[in-house]
């Protein structure tokens, strides 16, 4: 299969941007999964970092092939999600948010101080093994899978929990189990995003997975909406493309980003794409 030269040029020129759209799309899905059940967990950047560091080490130190590294990159985030998930099951709202921000900060300190993670310099020379089709294939699978689950009884339970966890429990929804499952799914998606981004950018550092990226990932889903998985991805793409469109105005870029989020929260509380998941026979 050959692609036309103009498309090849386009892909080459905007390669970084296209990769960022795919990776940020996955991170938006990771955020969507927890927001969709009504939990404010901000550990997505931390899970991404675990996926990035563990996959980079597997490639650099263990010389494993990428088809092994990529699936294995979810192990560390999932393990940590289970470790923090169980004790924080009873937390919700701002308490869970604070606990998960804490996770990111703890991990940042670990990356900075443990030699194998390269300290403040991070890890360099990661071979570029992730392909564009892999990133978008995983993103498409993620959107499709979450959409299909969302349109089943599981999706009804998720929406019910988001609206009223007490009433959902009385309906027989195992609320703690859903919390844990959502956190683990979120960790898998963010871990894959981390592994993919590490293997397209050749460098990773401890500050890429701290508080600021955690808030950026939250803003993807807030801007896009959490009614459907595609809405959150649309939010991520909007916020990824926006800085590129304003490349000539670097001094107002961050400001405008902030203004857009404030306006979205005030005037589009359900996000850019605010509609609900349509369910058959409903």
């Amino acid at each position, binding site marked *: 299969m050959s692609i036309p030269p103009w498309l090849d040029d386009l892909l080459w020129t905007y390669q970084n941007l296209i990769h960022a759209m795919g990776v940020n799309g996955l991170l938006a899905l990771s955020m969507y999964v927890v927001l969709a059940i009504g939990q404010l967990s901000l550990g997505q950047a931390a899970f991404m970092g675990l996926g990035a560091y563990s996959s980079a080490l597997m490639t650099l130190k263990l010389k494993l092939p990428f088809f092994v590294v990529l699936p294995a990159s979810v192990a560390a985030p999932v393990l940590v999600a289970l470790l923090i998930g169980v004790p924080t099951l009873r937390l919700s709202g701002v308490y869970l948010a604070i606990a998960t921000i804490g996770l990111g900060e703890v991990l940042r300190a670990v990356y900075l101080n443990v030699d194998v993670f390269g300290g403040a310099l991070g890890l360099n020379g990661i071979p570029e093994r992730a392909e564009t089709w892999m990133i978008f294939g995983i993103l498409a699978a993620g959107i499709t*899978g979450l959409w*299909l*689950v969302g349109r*089943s*009884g*599981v999706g*009804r*339970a998720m*929406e*019910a929990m988001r*609206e*009223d966890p*007490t*009433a*959902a*429990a*009385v*309906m*027989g*929804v*195992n*609320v703690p189990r859903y919390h844990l499952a959502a956190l683990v799914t979120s960790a898998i998606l963010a871990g894959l995003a981390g592994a993919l981004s590490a293997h397209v950018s050749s460098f990773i550092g401890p500050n890429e997975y701290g508080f600021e990226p955690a808030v950026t990932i939250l803003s993807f889903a807030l801007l896009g909406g959490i009614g459907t998985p595609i809405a959150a991805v649309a939010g991520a793409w909007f916020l990824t493309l926006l800085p590129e469109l304003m490349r000539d105005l670097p001094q107002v870029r961050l400001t405008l980003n902030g203004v857009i989020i404030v306006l979205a929260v005030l005037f589009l509380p359900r996000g850019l794409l605010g509609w*609900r998941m349509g*369910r*058959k*026979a*409903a």
Partner: protein
Amino acid sequence: MTLPHAPLLTTQQLTRRYAGLVAVDHVDLVVPQGGVHAVIGPNGAGKTTLFNLLSGLVTPSEGRISFAGADITAQSAHRRAGLGIARTFQNIRIFGAMTVLENVLTGLHPRLRSSLGAVIFRLPSFRAEERDAVAGARAALDLVGLSARAADPASSLAYGDQRRLEIARAMAQNPKLLLLDEPAAGMNPAETVALGELVRRIASAHTTILLVEHDMGFVMRLSDSVTVLNFGRQIFTGTPGAVRSEPAVVEAYLGARLAAKLQAHHG
């Protein structure tokens, strides 16, 4: 295993304490199998706390709860739903953004068995299960007369219809015990009469009803037995006829002085 005449639900010395307050104080409740049973009492008597204890939203400070022959004291709310305890709420708690039908479908949640694989690949087993669930939910909507509103957002229903929706959602669970927390609150007399007919229709050998209600006419017309709580203590259990002539109950509602005056008046 339930013996034919064994009670459906019993509590032994069930107690819930809050700082400086005993909301439910050593209550020995017995709910027989079948029929309609009422818990009444003045405001703050502990009726809603009792319901929260029975449905697993509040853990007891003391005492035990047995349901259908098993001790359920340590079971979580969702497990109790699976065992056959359903409830409605005094302050309506429907899922407002979801459709009427989806609300009722959540009541069928414990019966959904499809694996994640079956859900994602839309296997025939999953499709059949969803079809059955929708049919069950529609039957529950028929029961309360809300079928025509199935596709509407639940928040668009009128107040009385929202109460009916809560009952349909609970009935979709096919409960052995249905707890109705003030079902007639805020309803006009015509709606209350219709609700009474609905409650009578639902009550069967399979579904026993326990209700908390302030509308005494409603309670007296419908109930087979009445338990009276006052300051968390159980002060009377008996038939609706007997409860009216029980001095302790009259005193709880009217206060000792007025009760004594009435007593003197009627001889």
